[in-house]
């Protein structure tokens, strides 16, 4: 069972995000970066499939700067076999990234191509399905369970109020959602082993893309918070304000 997993280095979900002085990027000072949470489910799934099959290769790929090496090493420490860094300046446009990944993946043999369902920085939720179209492969996004039998995948994907059952023939693309599995933490042995695993690096040009960043801003300010009162006695006043001040009841 051979898998390719595409991952991304992103600010931790607890990070405070401030727009940098240039108005086009975020201020990285004090921001802790980590592997995108959903990518961990994708890696775990690939490793479990390889372990269950008893053979196969798990390759991780990322598009990013030199600092993304650390994220690839983390994936290797979890148990991936080899890694590829496609060095480029990443923008908020998913299409050039999807193209770069598709170009790298085309020609590599694999059964499953996995992603996290979205990166928690640009929140695009675009690249997995774009890559599937660029490669002409079936694809299930937001997947919470996956069964594979005789080269056929049955995935459950989260939709409003339930799940869709999605079936396709391998090779295919999966975008992992929380719930798919419990990602392992890298063991000390895994961390040591990761240092010796192959990590290939190459520069790629992210070409095209129809989106131009005009600027980044902080979120709109919330109205001044008001404490209505304490305990159940404050409820009638709350209800009055919800009806009369903001008219939402």
């Amino acid at each position, binding site marked *: 069972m051979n898998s390719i997993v595409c991952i991304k280095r992103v600010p931790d979900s607890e990070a405070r995000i401030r727009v940098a002085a240039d108005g086009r990027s975020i201020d990285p000072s004090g921001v802790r970066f980590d592997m995108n949470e959903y990518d961990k489910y994708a890696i775990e799934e690939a490793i479990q499939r390889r372990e269950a099959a008893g053979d196969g290769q798990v390759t991780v790929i990322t598009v990013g700067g030199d600092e993304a090496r650390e994220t690839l090493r983390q994936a290797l420490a979890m148990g991936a076999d080899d890694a590829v860094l496609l060095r480029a300046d990443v923008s908020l446009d998913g299409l050039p990234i999807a193209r770069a990944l598709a170009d790298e993946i085309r020609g590599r043999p694999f059964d499953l191509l996995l992603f996290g369902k979205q990166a928690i920085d640009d*929140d695009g939720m675009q690249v997995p399905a774009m*890559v599937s179209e660029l490669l002409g492969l079936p694809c299930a*996004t937001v997947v919470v369970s996956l069964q594979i039998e005789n080269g056929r995948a049955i995935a459950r994907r989260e939709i409003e109020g339930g799940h869709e059952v999605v079936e*396709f023939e391998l090779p295919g693309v999966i975008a992992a959602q929380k719930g798919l599995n419990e990602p392992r933490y890298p063991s000390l042995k895994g961390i040591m082993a990761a240092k010796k695993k192959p990590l290939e690096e190459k520069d790629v040009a992210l070409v095209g893309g129809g989106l131009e960043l005009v600027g980044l801003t902080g*979120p709109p300010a919330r109205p001044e918070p*008001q404490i209505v009162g304490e305990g159940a006695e404050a409820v009638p006043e709350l209800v009055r304000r919800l009806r009369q001040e903001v008219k939402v009841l």
Partner: protein
Amino acid sequence: MADVIAYAEMRDGTLRPVARETVSVARVLADELGGDVVAVALGGPGSADAARELAGYGADRILTAENEAFANYDPDSAVRAIESIAGDTSPVAIVFPASAQGKDLSARVAGRLDRSLASEVTEFDVEDGSIVVTRPVYAGKAYARLRFRETPALISLRPNVFPVVKKQGAGVAEALDLEPGEVRTRVSGIEGGSRERLDVREADVVVAGGRGMQAPEHWKMLDDLVDALGPQATLGASRAVVDAGWRPHGEQVGQTGKVVSPSLYFAIGISGAIQHLAGMQTAKVIVAVNKDPEAPIFGVANYGIVGDAFEVVPRLTEEIRTLRGAGG
């Protein structure tokens, strides 16, 4: 022509509420750019008739494909349909809802047409003839303004942000020549579709519970509040209670769950971790109930009550029932 294609999402042969939002936005764009609104709807038996309603939200052409095979989402056929219509009409924009289906489909269409996509858009303008959109990034901790340099501009709209506007379009109904062809990805069924409650992203009112609820059995209290608030209300949850297994992941609000924009958001016993605040701070009105007056949730709440949820929530339910009983 500067036509705008609107993907009108259906389920069970009826339009989903986001379909009306999508067509309404397409109408505004088409009016600014001087084109027609072309609504596209694929569905099972009865769907073509149901889609005619879109004329009342500004659709000039309503292209439908009615087939038993389209009763469930058929991504391959939907991509082919939009690709073919885009080839015929040279649209300036293709608008999707940022629903589960719309997000999946819009990214596929972007890959197929080799055009960029702006996801979860919350604002749009036309400046010097090009479409400029605003979309939250980092789960709403920042907003990006993006300009489309090419057409068609592919856009998915965050549910519950744009108003549904009644406006008559020409409403010419046409059947698409679309058969379920080569299917790579087959949706063979839907599970748990009883839809007892609205999805947290599509509800107008969200009652979200956190650690302060102390145990899963106490959700009965929040359930009662949701019932009192009516059919547009639903339940949400913090990451802590989802990770503890008290609530399903589908209810999780926050950067690693769902980002919501309801009119009214109740945060009950939720302290307000940064990743949670990121997921709900675009709610129009936020009400927080928490024992700890220092809880960060009070920093974003329009209204706060410092107190025990077990006393405040039943009283709130009672007051709202009285209000509804008195005719709202």
